[in-house]
């Protein structure tokens, strides 16, 4: 469910991965973090495409057995691709794509930029990557568009190098004139901003003098605006024309752009970096065409549905950024997937989102407190639970509920009143203790007082009280120690430090963050800052972070249960308890399916 990112860093290595949803493959590239290799994304896309094309048949026919039995003789291809990528990244001639465009627009003919050999593959691959990021759909469209070219230029990376330069040039010309008529796909514009950023400032080209007004009308076209801010390098367009190393891909992009300019349409541009995000809304028309042929999901299909889902989630009190990330990861997961014949896009997306939500809410690790308490019992040490949270979320109330539950299961509890700040905190806990003891008198538990309060009054150091309480519990043989702390705002640095100290010094078995279900976007901030404070102020190698969440005041929200999602998403820790009222019995555990059902309900 966290599929939104595509890179992962661990020690000195960074891994970037790419999913192929159609065949359920993952392509992973690992490299050293200190080297910022720019060709990594390209490389992974090339590899992906090549691998898929090569072994497509095997996948389709044999399914898994094919995977298991097939020997993938990919090493040679891979080495080749790797070499190409490395080469291309090394050479960075200062020629600008913009130059090309400008000259192109001005001349309205095929022109090539002066480039070194190495540059071309890079640009080409960039474009290919950009197009490749739309998977089948785009290529299906691109293919008809390039039908005249007749070669699989968008597909196999390796094939490019084999076309001779003359052929390339020729094909480019043909394609250009053909495509000049078509409505352009705007998606390919995104490489341009990329290219811009990488080149430095260049002096403006002088051949704009003979350009028509359209070209100089920068204000109209959105892409032109962004691109033309970079001054263009001097170059001679005639020489550029004679340049052999034009790759088809580059021209492909430019033609679309010039088409765009010719029409002077304001299609929504998607200038984001193609490596991170896939898709451009500008290609929508192309996508629709592609849909008729194959039924694989593309970004464009999913976008409107995802928008609606995102708004729905936010309306259900999920934090805004979480909702965005969730939708993003669902999109990534579904992209390129082949749908069944009778499923709509909406239903597929809903299904995927539902699965992702259930996945988030379900605990990754065991959430069995009783089991752990039994373990600690066996080792003759008390099981220490610490409650932390902001003001007024219900720490003390839920602490009492949890101690009731523990007593019901036959464990003796020591409550440590480490809230030395709030007036009446200690008295509150004392009242709870008295009531609990009344409910479970010592006689019925073999003469043991089940609940005891350990307090040292107000104004003292909380960490010290906690430490004393734990050793007292160990001496007296209590099974569980529940430590109640004062509520504090996450921005309050000295208080956060104090809390971190308490946790670091006493090393509790379970650190529970108490959060109320009414909180909205604040939940993200609270949890992040709490965790950060705990991590920063701990001396140990592996700091104790929040281990679980107690979601309180659940009875006050009807079905706007989004806070649960936000909290578990941020911490990836389970929700251990849910508080649903103010009596001792109002303690529940989380039912992931019910919560998700409530969330997805219209």
């Amino acid at each position, binding site marked *: 469910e966290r599929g939104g990112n595509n890179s992962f860093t661990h020690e000195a290595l960074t891994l970037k991965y790419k999913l192929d949803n159609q065949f359920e493959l993952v392509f992973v590239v690992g490299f050293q973090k200190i080297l910022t290799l720019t060709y990594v994304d390209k490389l992974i896309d090339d590899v992906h495409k090549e691998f898929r094309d090569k072994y497509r048949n095997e996948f389709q026919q044999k*399914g898994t057995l094919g*995977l298991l039995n097939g020997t993938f003789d990919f090493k040679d291809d891979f080495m080749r691709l790797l070499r190409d990528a490395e080469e291309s990244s090394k050479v960075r001639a200062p020629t600008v794509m913009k130059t090309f465009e400008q000259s192109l627009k001005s001349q309205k003919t095929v022109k090539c930029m002066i480039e070194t050999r190495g540059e071309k593959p890079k640009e080409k691959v960039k474009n290919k990557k950009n197009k490749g990021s739309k998977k089948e759909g785009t290529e299906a469209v691109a293919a008809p568009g390039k039908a005249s070219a007749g070669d699989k230029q968008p597909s196999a990376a390796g094939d490019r190098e084999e076309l001779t330069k003359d052929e390339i040039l020729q094909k480019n010309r043909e394609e250009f004139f053909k495509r000049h008529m078509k409505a352009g796909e705007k998606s390919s514009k995104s490489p341009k901003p990329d290219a811009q950023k990488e080149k430095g400032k260049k002096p403006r080209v002088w051949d704009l003098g003979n350009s028509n007004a359209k070209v100089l009308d920068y204000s109209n076209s959105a892409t032109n605006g962004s691109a033309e801010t970079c001054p263009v390098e001097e170059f001679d367009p005639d020489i550029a024309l004679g340049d052999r190393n034009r790759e088809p891909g580059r021209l492909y992009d430019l033609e679309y752009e010039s088409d765009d300019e010719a029409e002077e349409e304001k299609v929504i541009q998607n200038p984001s970096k193609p490596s991170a995000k896939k898709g451009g809304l500008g290609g929508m028309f192309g996508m629709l065409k592609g849909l008729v042929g194959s039924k694989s999901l593309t970004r464009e299909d999913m976008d409107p549905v995802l928008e609606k889902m995102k708004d729905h989630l936010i309306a259900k009190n999920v934090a805004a950024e979480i909702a965005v990330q969730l939708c993003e990861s669902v999109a990534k997961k579904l992209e390129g997937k082949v749908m069944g014949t009778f499923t709509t896009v909406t239903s597929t997306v809903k299904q995927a989102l539902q699965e992702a939500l259930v996945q988030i809410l379900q605990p990754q690790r065991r959430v*069995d*407190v*009783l089991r752990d308490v039994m373990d600690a019992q066996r080792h003759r040490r008390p099981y220490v639970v610490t409650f932390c949270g902001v003001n007024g979320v219900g720490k003390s109330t839920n602490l009492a509920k949890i101690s009731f539950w523990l007593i019901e299961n036959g464990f003796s509890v020591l409550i440590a009143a480490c809230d030395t700040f709030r007036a009446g905190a200690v008295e509150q806990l004392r009242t709870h203790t008295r009531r609990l003891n009344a409910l479970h008198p010592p006689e019925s538990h073999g003469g043991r007082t089940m609940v005891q309060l350990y307090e040292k009054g107000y104004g003292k150091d909380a960490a010290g009280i906690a430490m004393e309480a734990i050793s007292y519990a160990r001496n007296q043989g209590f099974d569980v120690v529940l430590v109640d702390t004062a509520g504090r705002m996450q921005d309050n640095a000295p208080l956060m430090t104090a809390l971190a100290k308490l946790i670091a010094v006493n090393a509790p078995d379970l650190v529970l963050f108490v959060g109320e279900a009414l909180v909205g976007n604040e939940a993200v901030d609270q949890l992040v800052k709490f965790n950060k404070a705990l991590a920063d102020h701990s001396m140990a190698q592996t700091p104790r972070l929040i281990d679980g969440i107690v979601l309180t005041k659940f009875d006050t929200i009807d079905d706007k249960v989004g806070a649960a999602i936000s909290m578990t998403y941020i911490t990836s820790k389970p929700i251990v308890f849910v508080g649903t009222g103010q009596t001792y019995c109002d303690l529940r*555990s*989380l*039912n992931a399916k019910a919560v998700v059902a409530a969330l997805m309900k219209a």
Partner: protein
Amino acid sequence: QLLTGKYRDTQTSITDSSAVYRVSSDKSANVTLIDLPGHESLRLQFLERFKAAARAIVFVVDSVAFQREVKDVAEFLYQVLVDSTVLKNAPALLIACNKQDVTMAKSAKLIQQQLEKELNTLRVTRSAAPTSLDGSATGGPAQLGKKGKDFDFSQLPMKVEFVECSARGSKGEEGDADFEGLEKWLAKIA
């Protein structure tokens, strides 16, 4: 670690953690084997998807790491067993103690005993957990085995067997997988 389901090949390379793939074996009848990822975040998801269709379940246990992971193993097994769909269909259950070629591997008997003990405690703790939000009890109605008595695998409504096996085989990487027990069991249920 634990995969519910099985693959059948003499390859030693295993791709863990993502794919669900179907392998069909052939004994007298045809049986489709489905391998489910064991990664903790994924296992429940896939279990949900396939539990209704399962004729039988093979629960693979790493005999070497068992001692360390006994709680996790038991918990997952508990979840499988307590599931209402599973209880209703009562598919045959085979607990395959894998990696027997490694010297430190525990025997099937030992694993059985340990699991029974763990499941015993789990029964108690799980049923005592706070009830779920909408009132449905978490481990409640499905009480494994008989109350009052210690948990025993024979108390389950389904047939449970323990088998030792080894995917690698004793001859090292290229040796044949030691699947006899598994194959026999498969033939029985097919």
